[in-house]
């Protein structure tokens, strides 16, 4: 057994500070285990979100040694324990307490996206037919556990605070899942351009790199959506046709 030091962000009247905690490390431990140990024995009021502890719910998002990660999926043997391990809250969202941030903005954003709208059924019994190949594409985005680490790392939100103009990678992937759903009949291309700010993304791929579900957000979701917007609004042939139509 070894001991490791964790520098954990704690809220206080001045805003907050890093507090050092010493933890016994056993094989197989993840960062969330260390936080739980600290909570049970040293700091019962340490605020942290978690649910499944298996990388499926996306509750325990934090920044570990500066990297946006799920605490439950970060094994201690993947970190250098000779140096203190820094654990702090996501920085793109307002802090509530300790490691817990106010992510309610994300829930409001989703409400503003045109919901799934099914096309008429294929069969007389009211059911649809889809090929697995077409479903696979959508299922990649539907793996999203809404941990919001992609939102946290996106510089448009994190550094430029453009929360009013840009829905962020999570909701671009969400929109892609709706747009590419073989059953969906709604059109979200105009809102992507006008209200959701798809043009603001300059494809730095940070969101894809931090995704714990390994969703290729940039290439598979955002770029195709940008292409749809370009095809619709900027393609010279389409523009010409529009001129004739009007």
């Amino acid at each position, binding site marked *: 057994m070894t001991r490791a030091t964790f520098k954990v962000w704690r809220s206080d009247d001045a805003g907050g500070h890093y507090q050092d905690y010493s933890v016994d490390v056993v094989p*197989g431990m993840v960062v969330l285990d260390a936080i739980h140990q600290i909570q*049970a024995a040293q700091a019962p009021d340490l605020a942290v*979100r978690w*649910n*499944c502890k298996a990388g499926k719910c996306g509750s325990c998002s934090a920044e570990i040694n500066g990297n946006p990660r799920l605490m439950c999926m970060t094994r201690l043997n993947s970190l250098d324990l000779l140096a203190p391990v820094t654990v702090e809250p996501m920085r793109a969202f307002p802090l509530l307490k300790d490691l817990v941030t106010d992510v309610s903005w994300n829930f409001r954003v989703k409400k503003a996206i045109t919901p799934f709208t099914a096309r008429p059924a294929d069969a007389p019994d009211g059911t649809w037919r889809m090929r697995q190949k077409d479903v696979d594409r959508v299922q990649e985005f539907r793996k999203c556990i809404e941990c919001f680490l992609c939102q946290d790392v996106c510089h448009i939100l994190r550094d430029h605070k453009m929360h009013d103009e840009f829905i962020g990678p999570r909701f671009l992937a969400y929109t892609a899942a709706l747009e590419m759903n073989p059953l969906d009949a709604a059109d979200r291309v105009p809102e992507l351009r006008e209200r959701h700010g798809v043009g603001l993304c300059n494809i730095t791929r940070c969101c894809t790199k931090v995704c714990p579900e390994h969703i290729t957000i940039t290439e598979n979701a955002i770029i195709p959506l940008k292409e749809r917007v370009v095809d619709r609004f900027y393609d010279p042939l389409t523009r010409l046709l529009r001129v004739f139509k009007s």
Partner: protein
Amino acid sequence: MTNFEAFDYDVLVIGAGGAGLRAAIEASAAGVKVGLICKSLLGKAHTVMAEGGVAAALANVDDRDSWKVHFADTMRGGQYVNNWRMAELHAREAPDRVRELEAWGAVFDRTQDGRILQRNFGGHRYPRLAHVGDRTGLELIRTLQDQGVHRGLDVHMEFTVVSLLISDGRATGVVGYERERGRFKVFSAAAVVLATGGTGRAYKITSNSWEGTGDGHALAYRAGAELMDMEFIQFHPTGMIWPPSVQGILVTEGVRGEGGILLNREGRRFMFDDIPEPYRTQTADNEEEGWRYTQGDKSARRPPELLTRDHVARCIVREVKAGRGSPHGGVFLDIAWIKNRLSGAEAHIKRKLPSMYHQFKELGDIDITREPMEVGPTTHYIMGGIRVDADSQMSTIPGLFAAGECAAGINGANRLGGNSLSDLLVFGKRAGEYAAQFARQNPRRGVDTAQVQRAIDEALQPFDRSASSENPYTVQAALQEMMQSLVGIVRTEGEMQQALEELTRLTARAARAGITGHREYNPGWHTAIDLKNLLTVSEAITRSALERKESRGGHFRDDFPDKNPEYAAFNIVTVQRPDGTMEVRRVPLPPMPAELQQIIEDQKS
């Protein structure tokens, strides 16, 4: 008088997992004003952990399937102490509930001809589980969450309910606090739906998240409702056992459905050693046939790895006790072996079981396409819960409804895999529908402010206790340890009597549990509150298990290892006496109609 914010709803739903969301959607569709409360953020409920699929006799993969076969399978799995009416409604209505999800945007895996694909699971006669790889629960909860949000549901997140309000024997609302700021809120409602999930946190090794503290069970019990079948707890046979920090986390039954086999340390496939009589004619007696079954051969019988969960769990315990277990005290679950049978097995496993691959790779540093997993039983699900009317889901308290894991009846002594997701949909919908109907017929009453004040005072008590008081985390851990060792997979009279004595001591310690810090997002406070509920459900589990002097389904008594037909005639119910102590009653099962009995007989061949 402590300040609180007040809200009024026609229907108030507690819990935003599958059952709560489905109930809220239905009530909202009925045109009444609906409030929804959840303990975590929306979309994080334990439903996200459901992996294998949702059971529904769509007959897309095998046209011999029908609601009748599903009904018979469910009753047999539950050892015939299920509420037959619930089992019937569930089997009849599950297909429509699944098709409805697709209409709301869920994206299931497909058959060759483009319909919803279904997979094999333990205890189900035909491939019946509609699924999305091995993350079906996430698909279900996300679809319901988005459907609910777009319908304009009013959601109160990260909110703990501390008490149900009752006036003249009717539910009138709830009191609780928002975890973020620690402020109290009082909700008045004409009807309240409990959809709070399970009680797994009463045990040390569990697949349940921190939320599974039996809140709905305990709130309803303290309000005077009846709990039923609390002795029936499902220990899922395959939880991760290594490394220790992941102990208890589930390994989906889908692994076995796709051909995974169980081996002891000698490399023996021990599940062939003990096939129970009722399943003998439908179970393969050789490896070849079992393999063909998992690959969709309709003429083959299922492998013994797909017997019911209680049986598989006990076989694993037997191997471990006999010294034939794996190095860390479980057995081996091997899916990698299918490379001997299937070309491209590695890609196949990754496609069929993506989150299992991911989970073992990242948490255990184990590649399941190459090496076996080490697994052992973990506390997974409680078949027991609030006693409800089968059709309406109303409890014995007018205006109080329950659905999903916190309600009892459909599963009897043991739940088949895949039946929980369908249970959520079928009975969540019914609870929402009947709660809305009740609300329209019975206008909202005012809440009793004295009751509100008592509930708030009690909830704040942990702040008044001295620094030398008990640490709530320590008491919780002691309770979990005690229940695990004394009221676990194998039970005896003496140990359970000892458990009752321990519960008295733990209750006294819990009453001394104090906390530091302030009310804002204080997990120590939350733990102290959860502890009270855990103690209530632990007592109900223990007393019910003492009363059932036989072994049936999830309940196994070492001192009464056989089924006793006498005990097939009633359910065991616990209810609070006026003096606050717990009464245990035997409630006769209602007689089953002849046509349902006939279905069971027909399916026995």
